[in-house]
């Protein structure tokens, strides 16, 4: 059984002029424990909405979302919040550290919603996690005193401190330079692997996406599988499309891929 499974999920909102905006259309996705999946797409293609649905922050308009085989639609709001806290860790593009709190307090914050030993030992657990991300010497540092990379490390420590089964990363390197972004992603990969957590990263950075075992592209609300950086090729955005081309080849204009993406696997529905 897949850890999480989206089946034909749509998400629509009604606009002020009473028309419907379809953000996601027929999205089907299955992720197993410990898997690393990336979703690429330009801004406004529904990446964050997909992540919000996966993280139980939003609900699909139609379709089925099952977590451990349990349909999420049958859970109460309270039960969804509990599962969100227990099973998911979020890493945001803008870090979203709590202002006025030290690195330690930020990492301990999710444990305020835990129960039992995790709640009472929250400071120790947070310190251990900060040590794990290389910030053991900066426990009492305020976020504004930390560099961007350090802030994202704190955010990663915070996302992982409750030992989630799924890490949802929304543009985790979006606010970092290339080198720092690479370091942060390496750390995220490493810790996710160590803890056995599934990692779903949403990004427009193809290099970040390429780190995953499986890749998807989200365009106009439709999720399609994607092959990135096959041997001897590099991938870059051409218009709205990630395009793979052989090293040294010239990318064709107007978005025509030099090397076409492979056909979609059976479990993924492509655009109509």
């Amino acid at each position, binding site marked *: 059984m897949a850890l999480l499974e989206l089946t034909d999920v749509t998400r629509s909102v009604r606009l002020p002029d009473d028309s419907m905006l379809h953000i996601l259309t027929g999205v089907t996705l299955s992720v197993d424990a410990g898997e690393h999946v990336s979703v690429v797409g330009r801004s406004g293609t529904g990446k964050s909405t997909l992540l919000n649905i996966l993280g139980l922050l939003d609900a699909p308009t139609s379709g089925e979302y099952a977590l451990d085989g349990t349909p999420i639609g049958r859970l109460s709001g309270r039960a969804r919040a509990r599962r969100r806290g227990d099973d998911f860790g979020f890493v945001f593009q803008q870090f979203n550290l709590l202002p006025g709190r030290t690195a330690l307090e930020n990492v301990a914050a999710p444990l305020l*919603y835990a*129960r039992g030993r995790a709640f009472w030992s929250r400071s120790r657990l947070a310190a251990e996690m900060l040590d794990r991300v290389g910030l053991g010497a900066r426990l009492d540092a305020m976020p504004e005193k930390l560099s961007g990379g350090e802030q994202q490390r704190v955010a990663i420590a915070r996302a992982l401190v409750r030992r989630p089964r799924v890490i949802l990363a929304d543009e985790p390197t979006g606010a970092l330079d290339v080198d720092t972004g690479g370091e942060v992603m390496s750390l995220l990969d490493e810790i996710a692997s160590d803890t056995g957590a599934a990692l779903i990263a949403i990004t427009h950075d193809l290099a970040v996406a390429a780190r995953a075992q499986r890749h998807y592209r989200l365009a106009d609300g439709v999720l399609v599988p994607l092959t990135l950086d096959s041997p001897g090729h590099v991938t870059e955005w051409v218009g709205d499309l990630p395009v793979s081309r052989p090293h040294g080849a010239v990318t064709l204009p107007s978005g025509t891929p030099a090397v076409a993406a492979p056909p979609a696997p059976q479990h993924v529905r492509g655009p109509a």
Partner: protein
Amino acid sequence: MTGLVGAVVEAWDELRIHKLRVLLALVGVAVAVCAITGITAAAQMMNQVLREQVERDIGRPTTLVVNAFPLGESGPGTAAQYDAEFARVVERYGIEYASREMFTQLRFRFPTGAQDVQVQVVDPEYGVMRRVQPAQGTWFSESDVDRLAPPLVVNESFLAQLGAVDLSSHPTVVLGGKSPVRATVIGVVEDRFPEEGPTAFLLYDHFSRWATPDPSFGPMIPSLQLWVPPEMADELTEVVRRDLQAALPNSQADVFQQGEGFDVLDGGVQWVITGIGAVALLLGGLGLVNISLVTVRYRIREIGIRRSFGATSGRVFFGVLMESVVATSVAGVVGVIAAVVVIKNIPVESIFGVALDDTPPFPRSAALLGMVCATGVGALAGLIPAIVAVRVKVIDAIRY
């Protein structure tokens, strides 16, 4: 359990981080709590002052005053017969505080010449029953009854008439009559009003021993005052009257309660005072609502982040509410402490002109009222921001 502790920890953290904002918001609440607590406590203090004053003048609440006198020539002929029945009544009902009382004029020989002085004839218990506080010396004790020379408690005017300024010279005075005796002044009370003439207290037993009343006026029968427990007052009023009436044929015996329910500050005044404090508290609470609302809008992103940690809407609601409640509770404690400091340092004697006999402890009810008001205002002030916080859409909040 962890949910509750977590919410309190979260609320405390929020207050700790936003000290200045909290401080500004809570100054009004603390002042209002201080006012409402202080006013309530001061009212109770003033009530105590006035109560003691009244008790000095007319006696403690549930004091029974017993009057008995012969009807015509056929009644008991001597005061001793009445006296004996009074003693039996006191003993029969185990009444702890009882005193005979009689007003008369006795002649004293002052250095300036003999003078008739208003004398109040009482028993030693009278001092406790009427809160008599000698300014110098002491009030009568039981052992004073057995003295050979009668002891006196006099007023300042009496002492001045003796040519003494204090009791260090152990002043004495001759109590005139057919059997003159030298009385010793053992205590001095303040004059009750300016220009008051000499007055004195004399123990009843010494009066019986030394005074020689004019027999043409008939027996001088004292009244009997009984300070009884409130729950027994009504019953004793009736049974004492019945017993005396039966024991003293051809006499009239009357018993009535004195000093019932003389709360000087009546309920209406208390309510007005409490109302003023409540308005002050309401204004403080409105300030808190205002600041809390602004703060919640400022914290929308943070609320979204906390929702991503697994905070339920109930927890968010409770958390924001708790911030307000914890904050106003802290302000309440500060306000109550300030009120205690102020009330404890009020110079009661210089304000009211009398010293308190039983200085009441800071009224717990006032402190409790202050804390309840502070917590209540916190809950009310936190309600609107908490509702706003719950209505925040999580996905919008995270992007805020």
